[in-house]
């Protein structure tokens, strides 16, 4: 990985941030600091606002209340941030073509494309599938390819929206392994998950969302051993939070 640009996006700080869409409140009074280091994992029931929070942290949607800052700046171009969307769409190209496209979009010079593409595909374990049309890859392979695409941007912060939701354990492990590798290289990972086991494996910091509000945060071991709030206790115990 290359040297990071001097102006870092971290910490990403939400200050009393809220997002309304029409009459609907998706996020409310979010005050959160996402700092460098181990991965931050968002957990919470469906509709709790995890996806929206990730997108807001990425800078794809503006907050309607409060504010978000990146490294102290109110606006920051997303050159060193990347996001892997919940249902990634494969471009109608080969696997390598998808990665090359992401490299081009990120402004990487053409001369470097071939080497970088090979490296990225190797990182996510798709070496043999360079020329396979991306749409013909399996679910797990597509997810890994989308991850490679996101990493093509050489991000300092990587957002992952439920990256293993529909994958079998083998594919899930592959993704988690990559997360570990890049975290070791200094990339900050912010991901949401449905799988409490995954949260335990990956986190870092755990952030519990419920109905658009931030319920509780904490270091993974502390959080799961001694949750403070009622909702956290119920959620960890496997009850439905309504």
């Amino acid at each position: 990985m290359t040297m990071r640009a001097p102006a870092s996006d971290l910490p990403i700080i939400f200050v009393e941030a809220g997002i309304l869409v029409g009459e609907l409140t998706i996020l409310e009074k979010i005050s959160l600091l996402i700092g460098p280091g181990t991965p931050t994992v968002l957990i919470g029931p469906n509709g709790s606002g995890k996806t929206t929070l990730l997108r807001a942290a990425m800078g794809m949607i503006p907050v309607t209340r409060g504010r978000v800052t990146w490294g102290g700046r109110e606006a920051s171009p997303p050159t060193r941030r990347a996001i892997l969307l919940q249902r990634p769409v494969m471009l109608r190209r080969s696997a390598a073509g998808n990665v090359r496209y992401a490299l081009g979009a990120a402004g990487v010079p053409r001369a470097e494309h071939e080497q970088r593409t090979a490296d990225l595909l190797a990182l996510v374990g798709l070496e043999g599938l360079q020329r396979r049309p991306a749409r013909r890859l399996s679910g797990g392979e597509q997810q890994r390819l989308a991850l490679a695409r996101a990493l093509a941007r050489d991000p300092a912060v990587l957002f992952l929206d439920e990256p293993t939701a529909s994958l079998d354990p083998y594919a899930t492990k592959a993704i988690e392994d990559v997360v570990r590798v890049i975290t070791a290289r200094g990339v900050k990972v912010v991901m949401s998950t449905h799988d409490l086991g995954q949260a335990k494996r990956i986190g870092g910091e755990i952030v519990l969302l419920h109905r658009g509000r931030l319920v509780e945060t904490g270091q993974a071991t502390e959080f799961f051993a001694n949750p403070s709030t009622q909702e956290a206790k119920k959620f960890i115990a496997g009850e439905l939070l309504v």
Partner: protein
Amino acid sequence: MPGNVSALHLVLTGDPALYAIVRLSLIVSLSAVLFAALIGVPLGALIALTRFRGREVVIVVLNALMGLPPVVVGLAVFLSLSRSGPLGPWGLLFTPQAMVIAQTILVAPIIAALTRQTIEDLWVEYQDELAAMNVGPARRVMTLIWDARFSLVTALLAGFGRAAAEVGAIIIVGGNIDGFTRTMTTAIALETSKGDLPLAIGLGMVLIFIIILINALAWGARRAGERYAG
């Protein structure tokens, strides 16, 4: 000998008059598709990707223009290009160029409308990802057009079909001049009016065969392209 056989005979012996007619038909129709694409693809993409007041009306009108009556277009172009018309000084009436102009007008709405639909559908799919990759508007358009290229080729073929089959516009603006503006369709019209129906039918079959051939070549190109898609 009867017309159908004589038409076949002309083909097999490489009759220069027949080949000149076929060559002119292809040049006129393919040129029209080319210019119509240069106009229609960007226009269709633009409408697909921008939001503006009256957009729905524009889309309805564009779709309706796919059904422009060729003979009406021919008449309008004829009056424009006539020496006593606004574009008279260009001296384009009764030339192959006039035929290309008329057919471009006929084909451009088809290509634009089909491009709009194709690009809009693909945009719905790609929107989020392209936003996530922070792709700017110019690159967005090019990506959509490139990734949709096979569907766009189908749109071009639809346009070519329309151009190759029509006679109403080109016979008015071209004048069906022997050796200059006589194409397959206008030749068929002429032979019909001269009563040589078997020859007219024979020419018709040659025309249909050529259209099938063009479509087969496009299909082959598409398959080859898909195999190397990357």
